């Protein structure tokens, strides 16, 4: 549970079989929105089941965590999640969009997804362990299970949303951060993996 920071922006314990976890998208992919499209520039994606991984103890006075949830896009055009900001008391570092990919060594590692996370038109994307997530760096205080974290999420159409996320205990979502991972590798986009 406790994250050990070996070096900045590195999470220890990349031990679980992330390929298996990637399968989790099959059932949790959200239904396609039935909302009537608005003028797309004004459309703000909706979100459900948003949570953050609790970080009950800081290591060396700081810590990191990630936010997950289902984002829906009722509009005609793709919208991209660009990242966000948290309350300054929690962290002043910008919240990045991240993905988990397989590197050349076959390990599942996480890396920044600099172009953001796309929510397809009339579709949804699920941010979840082993896949897309919004990353928190440089935590100034612990996040206990049950705490509610409020962040502002910014979207590519110029809109933003205030999102409340409840902190939850989960054993995984500890992927090693690897800035050199092969960016050509296939991420684990749950919204396109529904086998059923």
């Amino acid at each position, binding site marked *: 549970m406790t994250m050990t920071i070996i070096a900045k922006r590195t999470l220890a314990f990349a031990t679980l079989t992330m*390929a*298996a*976890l*990637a*399968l*989790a998208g*099959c*059932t*949790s992919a959200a239904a396609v929105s039935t909302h009537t499209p608005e003028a797309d520039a004004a459309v703000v994606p909706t979100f459900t*089941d948003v*949570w953050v991984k*609790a970080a*009950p103890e800081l290591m060396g006075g700081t810590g990191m965590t990630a936010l*997950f949830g289902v984002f829906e896009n009722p509009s005609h055009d793709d919208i991209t999640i660009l990242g966000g900001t948290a309350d300054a008391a929690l962290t002043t570092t910008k919240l990045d969009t991240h993905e988990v990919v*397989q590197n050349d060594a*076959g390990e599942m590692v996480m890396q920044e997804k600099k172009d953001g996370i796309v929510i397809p038109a009339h579709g949804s994307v699920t941010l*979840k*362990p082993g896949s897309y997530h919004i990353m928190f760096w440089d935590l100034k205080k612990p996040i*206990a*299970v*049950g*705490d509610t974290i409020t962040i502002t999420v910014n979207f590519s159409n110029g809109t933003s949303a205030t999102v409340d996320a*409840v902190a*939850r*205990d*989960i*054993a*995984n979502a500890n992927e090693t951060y690897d800035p050199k991972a092969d960016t050509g590798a*296939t991420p*684990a986009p749950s919204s396109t993996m529904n*086998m*059923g």
Partner: protein
Amino acid sequence: MTRRGFLLSAGTTTGAFALGAGVGVAANAAVALRADTAVGAATVNFYGAHQAGIETPFQAHGVFLGFDLKRDTTHVMARRMMELLTDDAARLAQGDPALPDNDPYLAEKPARLTATFGFGPGFFTKLGLSSQIPAGFADLPAYRIDKLVPEYSGSDLVISIGSDDPLTLAHAVRQLTRTARSFSSIRWSQKGFVRSQGVAPATQTNRNLFGQVDGTINPAPGTEAFAGQVWAEGSPSWFAGGTQLVLRRIAMNLDTWDKLDEGGKEISVGRKLSNGAPLTGVHEFDAADMEAKNSAGLSVIPDFAHMRRARTDNPKEKFLRRPLNYDDGILLDGTSNSGLLFAAYMANIQTQYLPVQQRLVDLDLLNTWTTPIGSAVYALPPGCLPGGFIGEGLLS
């Protein structure tokens, strides 16, 4: 292995299991595994005036989990815990994964899953809520027949989980424990069962591991009698619609019981083994004739018979029995390790339960083969509506 390769192989493997033919296309496999049956897809509504899992007809499998609050748990933390546990339970009851859930497939077939929450005496005292303890709610007195062990006794919080499927149940246990453990530590878990769905008509009274028909005198769900026995009224106000649970782990010595012939077994209880009828009757629900004598002038239902000692005409001493069998396998000496998770639900332990339990302590031949080894009491809050949480009246 590439990720794509993994997916393909996984799909083929599951296809083989699902289709049983050694061939399978990944897509077909997924469809086959997710197809529902009436038993697997059945759900019990989590929300309502009362918690689910009490008036709910028996599920085949059940687990009681006992937790103790961590020493530094505050009122606010207890509230958060119950909010999160409520969220988990409501999702799982629908067949949805908990949030988060690393094994979401295991939630797919709820099979009438319910999770029911209760607060032990320590919950109230540790949180400074002693003034809110419901009327008649307290630990049971020490009984001379008890041989209680801490591994099965008491706790600040209980979660009772039931399902017709043991795999679904095991998953729910893990999810709820994961949430609870941030605020509390597990003290014990106790697993039990009755017959599987479809084996007997749903209305048929269960049997225990002594072979006895057990639960004949229970009030029928949905009746005024049930409500009167089980659901508390408004004192204190947060507890209106709640109930009190007595959970006793009763070891049953199947090996010495085996030494009795059928007549001896029947006379110890006062009911026939074949159908649960009283020894003075023919059918299970026949009223027992407590005055009937045999040719020697002896009571047909003996003074020491369990049913004579347990029964009462006093409506204020009746309650719901919802026991599960437990069978923890055979010990190395070849003897049984079995018994009953005796779960009794009532509006008021003191007035409804204690008089009956005292009579059984004073005289009950069944005590020869049974030994209470665990005991706990809980106040189970009323149910909640969507957006609310179990225990909100106490913790808000």
